[in-house]
């Protein structure tokens, strides 16, 4: 399983090959109940406490389709500019793996509920149209715990333990057509597509869409073709890439790996691959079998879904604003430059800034915290900005504390430290860490006097009108006050006393 792959430098890949991408994204819906039974869907429940005869596949149990899941599927399809099927069926996808106790997954095969759509994806100001092949309904699988062996993985395990709480939770699988013509931007287009898709899903309110909790999971198909050939090469499918950053890295890695194999006269094996977040490589999974091997057939226990055009139009009326228009509108509202907007979108912070502004934060402050502070921290810890554990409400509250003079930017950063460490709300952290700015004028005056006494030569310079020298005294006071003073007020006091 070790990575002994030859990786070709990225620029050399581009000189010789055209990359083609295909993305399959699974969205776990946030319905109250599962796709085919009335079991609850909450995250983190005790094992096997959200199960019933239907989702356990017990003999004689019959499925019943969740109306809200179908509505969510149609709304996702409409938001992706898809056609909505007039009539479609569920199908059984047969396979042997204990994550589905029925030995089949109820899915859709050749009759997806939504098909032939598109989403325009922006990368560095350039728009790429991603064609959507289909969006179909299916059910999630159980979770396996592999016991024994050293790795916690399937290989080498002695046995496995299965929790079926997740089995049967509604999933929508969204599949793109092959995306070409991206060149060097292929990794960024893949990332931007998943980011924008997530924003859309969140705006629709159909899923929590948290990649760290597996609500949104991306499979990345990649192939290379000789430059200018216009053909599609053999693809690999890298499964369950679970952050925006990883999507970008996985595409880049596979491009470099494919080029290494092709360049040495080899050929790509059509297979699934596993992404390893820690090492940033993919390793071989299972060889891809023909679709026929799943022996799909129409699900006999469910009747077809035939959304009336009236119903579809009712659902269309519930769609949120088109993302491109919304972006233009908010850019104007916020007064962001094109560059600021591009950076915000590129960092995956558009929705976060929007929510922060909605919570009362000035737009530029929201941008500053998310793009300066949070993006850096996300980058340091290798997580996505949305998964840091700091919410738009937190950021808005911190900025409100700054605006009312209780915090300065330096102290605000310490509040973010506390938020990341899970120490509670911003107000709790200010209290427990003792971060509030000291507004006690007596204490401030004393500290200023002390600084003047300790630095007589600096004080003389200021008396002589060299106000630039005040910085040294302000610094001394801030140090004395452990940063918990309003620097502007300290400056005023220094200049007053030395006038």
């Amino acid at each position, binding site marked *: 399983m070790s990575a002994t792959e030859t990786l070709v430098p990225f620029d050399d890949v581009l000189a010789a090959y055209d990359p083609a991408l295909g993305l399959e994204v699974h969205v776990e819906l946030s319905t109250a109940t599962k796709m085919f039974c009335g079991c609850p869907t909450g995250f983190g429940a005790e094992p096997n406490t*959200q199960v019933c005869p239907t*989702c356990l596949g017990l003999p004689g149990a019959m499925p019943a*389709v969740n109306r809200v899941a179908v509505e969510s599927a149609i709304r996702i399809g409409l938001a992706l500019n898809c056609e909505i099927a007039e009539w479609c069926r569920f199908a059984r996808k047969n396979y042997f793996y*204990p994550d589905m106790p029925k030995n089949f997954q109820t899915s859709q095969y050749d009759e997806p509920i939504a098909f032939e759509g598109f989403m325009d994806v922006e990368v560095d100001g350039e728009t790429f149209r991603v064609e959507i092949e289909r969006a179909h309904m299916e059910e999630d699988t159980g979770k396996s715990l592999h016991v024994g062996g050293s790795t916690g993985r399937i290989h080498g395990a002695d046995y496995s*333990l299965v*929790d079926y709480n997740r089995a049967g939770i509604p999933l929508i699988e969204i599949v793109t057509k092959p995306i070409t013509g991206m060149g060097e931007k292929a990794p960024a287009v893949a990332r931007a597509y998943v980011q924008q898709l997530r924003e859309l899903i969140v705006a629709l309110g159909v899923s929590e869409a948290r990649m760290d909790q597996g609500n949104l999971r991306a499979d990345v198909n990649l192939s290379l073709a000789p430059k200018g050939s216009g053909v599609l090469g053999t693809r690999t499918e890298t499964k369950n890439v679970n952050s925006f950053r990883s999507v970008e890295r996985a595409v880049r890695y596979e491009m470099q790996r494919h080029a290494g194999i092709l360049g040495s006269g080899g050929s790509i094996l059509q297979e699934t691959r596993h992404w390893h977040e820690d090492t940033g490589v993919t390793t071989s999974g299972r060889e891809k079998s023909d679709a026929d091997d799943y022996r799909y057939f129409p699900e006999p226990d469910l009747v077809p879904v035939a959304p009336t055009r009236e119903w579809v139009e009712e659902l269309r009326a519930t769609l949120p604003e088109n993302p491109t228009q919304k972006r233009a509108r908010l850019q104007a509202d916020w007064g962001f430059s094109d560059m600021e907007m591009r950076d915000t979108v590129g960092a995956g912070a558009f929705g976060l800034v929007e929510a922060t502004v909605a919570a009362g934060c000035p737009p530029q402050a929201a941008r500053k915290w998310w793009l300066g502070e949070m993006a850096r921290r996300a980058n340091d810890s290798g997580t996505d900005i949305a998964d840091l554990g700091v919410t738009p409400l937190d950021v808005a509250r911190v900025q409100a504390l700054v605006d009312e003079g209780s915090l300065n930017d330096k102290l605000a950063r310490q509040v973010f430290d506390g938020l990341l460490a899970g120490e509670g709300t911003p107000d709790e952290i200010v209290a427990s860490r003792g971060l509030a700015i000291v507004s006690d004028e007596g204490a401030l005056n004393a500290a200023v006097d002390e600084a003047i006494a300790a630095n007589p030569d600096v004080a003389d310079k200021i008396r002589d009108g060299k106000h630039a020298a005040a910085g040294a005294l302000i610094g001394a006071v801030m140090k004395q006050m452990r940063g918990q003073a309003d620097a502007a007020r300290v400056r005023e006091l220094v200049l007053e006393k030395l006038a």
Partner: protein
Amino acid sequence: MPEITRDEVAHLANLARIDLSDDELDHLAPQLSVILESVASISEVAGADVPPTSHPLPLTNVFREDVVRPGLSAEEALAGAPASEEQRFMVPRILGDEQ
């Protein structure tokens, strides 16, 4: 006439995880061919006025409202399991890969 070959039966048996011996394959392939032929004769009867159907009921859009219903407790769920551990179903070592 549809015919199912010995190789196809072997392939299907493999997909269904049914271990068939050479003798069984020899025996089953012709039998399955006869069954296929019998079923195929139905298509001779169906005229252009008979739409293909996968379901006996002329129904569509049968939905359940998204309301939680009581299910099983973990004890009940695991009662029929041959083995369990940590409130989970215990299954033998998995040889294949995730789907």
